[in-house]
């Protein structure tokens, strides 16, 4: 070891990429360590005739199914929801659907407005400039004038909502319920390094067009042009500290399994709500016998997963619902805010999902035990395939100390590093909210013209949103980091991912992860030049 970097970032996903892109504008030496590689856009599933089959193998969202060399196992046996992620430059945004709403103002102040959980130490107004700044890198499509938010301007044109979206929109109108074209991290026009979207469909298998703002497309080209160093195939095992318990770098394995160290003035961990507590908990020393940042036994606790229910309506007419960006059409925030009459606090959003592809649809019928065999097989598939509209219910999960990430006592990754174990149950409030949401989704599907509906939830393979396991706050007794993401117990160590979320909102977290990461990066930059 000879060189001391200004900043080492661990993880090149949504948060790490934003920190790298921001700091790259200044005279700051930044290196990022990422266990995966750059996605090969010329080899993504959507370029192949058997593209759907990749979802069940190397592009499966579950790392325990994928089992690629860059993946680490996650024990989810004690959770009804399995963790989903992707380990690569761009992280899970490589496989995300691109649904990109902001949190609502009340999401940051749930204790003040609803008397539950905790308020964030920051407000929507404080984060708003960073939501805006992030659009320098991320293509955000949508439509101005949404009554669910304070003004959001200068959006790219919305993703076409399609026949299915229009059918649902009319249903929402008949109920007098809110809906709006989805906020989408998709370039509907040429934007920076992005090509315009051509509605391929399976955004969640990677976008070979380069239209989706996965971080490998949105932030990394900028950061790399500005000379940030990115080292792939590097898996961090531990954060290093000095005798004053200040972070001084990390220990990691390179792709050949060689154990190395890197020294830095500032260390940023951005490995998501499971990967980050795993590294903190694995960083045990005499100074930190329970792991770094864990003097109050809070690291890994308060895991929130956005339990998701899926409601499908079957229509007489063909809605071409299998066409178009899978996760981006319209969404409804009608029930996002609390109401005293519903029997639960906080709420949920409804996100229209395009229909599954042919293979996925028939597999889904089989899973639901509704697939007919024999002479009725063809007719039953014909009547249903692409004749469906779909709503996902995304429930605002509340923080609970018992929902947590710990180190598995047995399971290890290919470098011998202890793997994470998730222990999680749905809270009563969440269950009531989900049941209410399913009923509302059925109502609006019927109002849209569906003849029947089918619903199930929570859906197991939907643990994409991993939040709360190193929450921020002003009080070191009840939080892991301060309002900038710096760990209370460990100076110069920052967290830049959804681990720091205090509460979860009922919308997808990526826009908020990246806005927070930019804010954290701005704080680090100030430390160089006060």
């Amino acid at each position, binding site marked *: 070891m000879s060189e001391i970097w200004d900043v080492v970032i661990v993880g090149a996903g949504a948060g790490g990429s934003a920190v790298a892109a921001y700091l790259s504008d200044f005279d700051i030496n930044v290196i990022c360590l990422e266990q995966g590689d750059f996605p090969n856009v010329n080899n993504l599933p959507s370029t192949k005739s058997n*593209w759907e089959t990749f979802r069940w193998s190397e592009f499966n969202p579950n790392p325990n199914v994928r089992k690629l060399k860059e993946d680490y196992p996650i024990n989810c046996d004690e959770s009804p929801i399995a963790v989903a992620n992707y380990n690569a430059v761009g992280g899970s945004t490589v496989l995300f659907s691109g649904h990109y709403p902001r949190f609502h103002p009340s999401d940051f102040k749930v204790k003040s407005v609803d008397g539950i959980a905790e308020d964030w130490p920051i*407000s929507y107004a404080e984060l708003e400039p960073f939501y805006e700044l992030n659009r320098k890198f991320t293509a955000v499509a949508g439509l101005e004038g949404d009554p669910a938010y304070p003004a959001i301007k200068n959006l790219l044109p919305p993703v*076409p909502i399609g026949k299915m979206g229009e059918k649902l929109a009319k249903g929402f109108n008949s109920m*007098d319920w809110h809906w709006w074209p989805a906020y989408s991290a998709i370039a509907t026009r040429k934007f920076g390094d992005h090509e315009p979207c*051509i509605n*391929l469909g399976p955004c969640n298998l990677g976008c070979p067009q380069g239209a989706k703002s996965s971080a490998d497309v949105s932030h990394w080209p900028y950061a790399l042009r500005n000379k940030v160093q990115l080292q792939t195939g590097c898996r961090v095992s531990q954060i290093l500290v000095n005798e004053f318990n200040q972070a001084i770098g990390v220990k990691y394995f390179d792709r050949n399994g060689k154990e190395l160290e890197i020294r830095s003035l500032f260390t940023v961990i951005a490995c998501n709500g499971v990967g980050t507590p795993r590294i903190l908990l694995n960083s045990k020393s005499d100074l930190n016998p329970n792991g770094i940042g864990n003097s109050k036994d809070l690291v890994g606790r308060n895991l929130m997963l956005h339990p998701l229910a899926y409601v499908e309506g079957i229509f007489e007419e063909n809605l071409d619902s299998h066409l178009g960006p899978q996760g981006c059409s319209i969404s409804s925030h009608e029930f996002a*805010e609390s109401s005293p009459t519903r029997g639960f606090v906080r709420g949920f959003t409804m996100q229209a999902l395009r229909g599954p592809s042919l293979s996925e649809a*028939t597999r889904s019928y089989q899973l639901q035990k509704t697939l007919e*065999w024999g002479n009725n097989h063809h007719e039953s598939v014909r009547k249903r395939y692409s004749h469906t509209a779909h709503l996902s219910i995304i429930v605002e999960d509340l923080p609970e100390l018992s929902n947590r990430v710990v180190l598995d006592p047995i399971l290890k990754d290919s470098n011998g590093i202890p793997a994470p174990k998730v222990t999680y149950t749905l809270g009563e409030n969440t269950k009531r909210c989900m049941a209410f949401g399913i009923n509302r989704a059925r109502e609006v599907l019927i109002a849209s013209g569906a003849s029947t509906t089918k619903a199930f939830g929570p859906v197991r393979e939907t643990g994409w949103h991993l939040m709360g396991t190193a929450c921020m706050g002003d009080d070191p007794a009840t939080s892991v980091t301060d309002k900038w993401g710096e760990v209370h117990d460990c100076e110069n160590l920052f967290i830049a991912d959804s681990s720091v979320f205090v509460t979860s909102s009922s919308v997808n977290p990526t826009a908020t992860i990246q806005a927070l990461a930019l804010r954290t990066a701005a704080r680090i930059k100030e430390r160089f030049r006060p």
Partner: protein
Amino acid sequence: MSSHEKSAKHPYLGSIELLVESLIPFDGETGLPSLEFMDFSKFLETKGEFEEYLLEFGELIERLELKLGAKFSQNSVDLFIYDKDLKKGLASILGMRLVEYYYQIPQVRAYYAQNIPAPFPKGNTLLALDYGLLEGVHSRGPIYREV
């Protein structure tokens, strides 16, 4: 000896073949093909699962024949296809493999207008937003809570 040569000695091979082809039969109305056992078995072979599933099918048929008191034959297809225990048996990964294979057949995909050979680079044209649909939503005014 290959898996297929070994399987030729399987006592239920004929019944398994008949069952598989009856699960998704030829559709005269659309011309959609039946699920061919030989092709399906090659698909399983590529996954290294052929013998495992042959065993699973064999046990399923043995149980059904015992329960229904009949040998599986063309004349008794309906008796077997609509039996709830068969449905239960197919609810496992076995049923998944059947549809995974069948709905990758180009002729089947072409019928359902799937992107062939791949979504990229052709893409799709979609119905754009009719902005008029949003008038009522917008006129309600803000629904978020001021903090």
